[in-house]
């Protein structure tokens, strides 16, 4: 396992499936990323967090993992809200979805997604999510081995 200074960073995971939250944790662990995870299990909670960030109530997340298909406000709404945020509008976002249609992908990028992760059905592929998160964090926050 790798260890580095990315561990003090915080991630906002917008995901309603506890199983997928578990797998996200596994993927990050596999990559040696022990970032702080904030979980929102519906879109409204995620938007409330972003509102609170903008109001100075809490620190801005360093990266968002947003499932497209979450209850109340869907992932697209969360992404739209994020991009309007004065404090964290430029934060990298990985949109996640079980389906992988060209239309969904296109729409996600139009709304400002940094990456699109189609949730795979093999363990090895799912673990790739950790690598993806590392690359994005390093691009923004630099490497420190």
């Amino acid at each position, binding site marked *: 396992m790798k260890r580095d200074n990315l561990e003090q960073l915080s991630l906002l995971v917008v995901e309603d499936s506890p199983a997928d939250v578990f797998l996200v944790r596994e993927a990050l662990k596999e990559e040696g990323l022990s970032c702080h995870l904030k979980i929102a299990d519906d879109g409204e909670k995620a938007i409330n967090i972003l509102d609170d960030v903008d109001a100075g109530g809490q620190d801005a997340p360093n990266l968002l993992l947003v499932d497209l298909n979450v209850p109340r406000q869907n992932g697209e709404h969360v992404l739209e809200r994020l991009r309007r945020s004065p404090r964290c509008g430029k934060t990298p976002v990985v949109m996640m979805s079980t389906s992988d249609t060209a239309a969904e992908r296109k729409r996600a990028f139009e709304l400002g997604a940094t990456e699109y992760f189609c949730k795979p059905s*093999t363990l090895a592929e799912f673990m790739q999510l950790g690598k993806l998160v590392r690359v994005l964090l390093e691009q923004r926050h630099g490497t420190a081995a």
Partner: protein
Amino acid sequence: MTQAYDKENELIATEQYKIGDLLSRLWEAEETIRAIYSGEADAVVVNSPSGPRVYTLEGADHPYRVMVEQMHESTVTLDPKRLILYSNPQFAALIGAASESVAGSDFERFLAPADASLFAGLIEAAVAGGHSSGELHLRGANAATIPVRLSVTPLDVAGMQNLCVIASDLREQRRNETILKEERLSRLILEQAAEAIVVIDQQGVIVRRSESANLLARKPVLMEPFDGAFHLTASGIRLDTDRILTAMRVGEEITGVEAQMAHSGGATSALLVSASPLSSQGNELLGCVITLTDITERKRAEEALASQAEELARSNSDLQQFAYSASHDLREPLRQLAVFTELLQSRYQDKLAAEAGLLIEHAVSSAHRMEGLLKDLLAYTQAADAPQGPAAYTDANEVCRKTVATFEAKIAQSGARIDCDPLPVLAIHEVHLTQLFQNLIGNALKYCGLEPPHVHISAERSDGLWKLTVADNGIGIDPAYKNQVFGIFQRLHGGGKYSGSGIGLAICQKIVQRYGGRIWVESELGRGSRFMFTLPEKKNEAR
């Protein structure tokens, strides 16, 4: 004895004298009759107790001759051989012939050929019964047929069976009958017309009406004001006689105008209203003919049909949505099942019995297979969805070439040969044509026998359709299954010999049907397959 003999001789001489006298008087009488008959005698002198008296034949005949010449009817006398002895000028005029050419002609010459036997019957009846009459046709100038009533009377003249024939011209009567019939027909048409038809005068009063007009108005409307009988509005504006007659005056057309008719009691009828002007010869508007077609039922049926179509579209869309959700939403837990099973294996490999690894493998592979099926089902539900952008024409050569390129590795590996004839530009989205070629060429390469695959793609045009054929030399299909292969998840081969879920041809069928085409297969086991599909030559709206 001698005395008696002399007396007898004297008696004989007297009788002989008497006979001679009688013979001479008989000859004289016969001669007179012959003279009268031949026209040599104009008068006869008869001795009477008061002296001789002259009887002029002219005096007896003249009035009748004048009557015959001047009467309205046409008449002829015929000899026993039906030759015309005499014709009055009216007969000659009737048949349009010169008077002098008529006498001496065979009467049949002036008879319509079809009526010859009818005429023979009339003569027979006249001879037997003293008189007969019947209607038949004469043949006039320019082969015109003239309907006539013929009266035939035998004339016994000096032992000759002559005939007197009087012909009454029926043309005028027939004309009147025709006019009468036409008038009756017009009236009948008006009365029986399914549409409500009314004729109004300049004051808007109904002066003629069809029976249906009464039914529509639910009361007799003759001589009623139109506006009272039919309360019409078109596009919310009252359509009354003022408006209709004004339109007629300025030459504005009223044809098939949709209108609402309000009945007393609140009910309404939907009508199509048309009006045509009735003008005098001096072009003065006398009124107009108004046709009111009741389309209430038709409208109701149209609305019912439209709502059914809407219902069907909704239920189709519901079904589509259901299939999408089922295939999409079911994939998520399935994917998690597969991943967690793998996770279980990787995490506890050391602690599990050897068999457990095999069981986990089966579980993972089942989950993956099911996920594949759901993916295919999703692809099927979305197969014929319209891609963004307008429907386009696609060059099939280009799509075929690109598709073949995607099979490059497989082709190299199997030594396959792919021949592609020149293909047309087709009225289909590129993405759909790609799917068709991908599935059909893919199948042709996949289901091959021992020989290297040989695929031939060709096209032909007939009756406004393009027919494309993808033929192969593969294992073929039992004709019993030639329809089944197009069903969803229908597979003919088990045991993992040929991979695939059996969705490809179902997708092809859905796409082809969307464009109004057809797809089918001709094949025999072991003799290759020919998959054919048609597409309309011209673009039509996707179904």
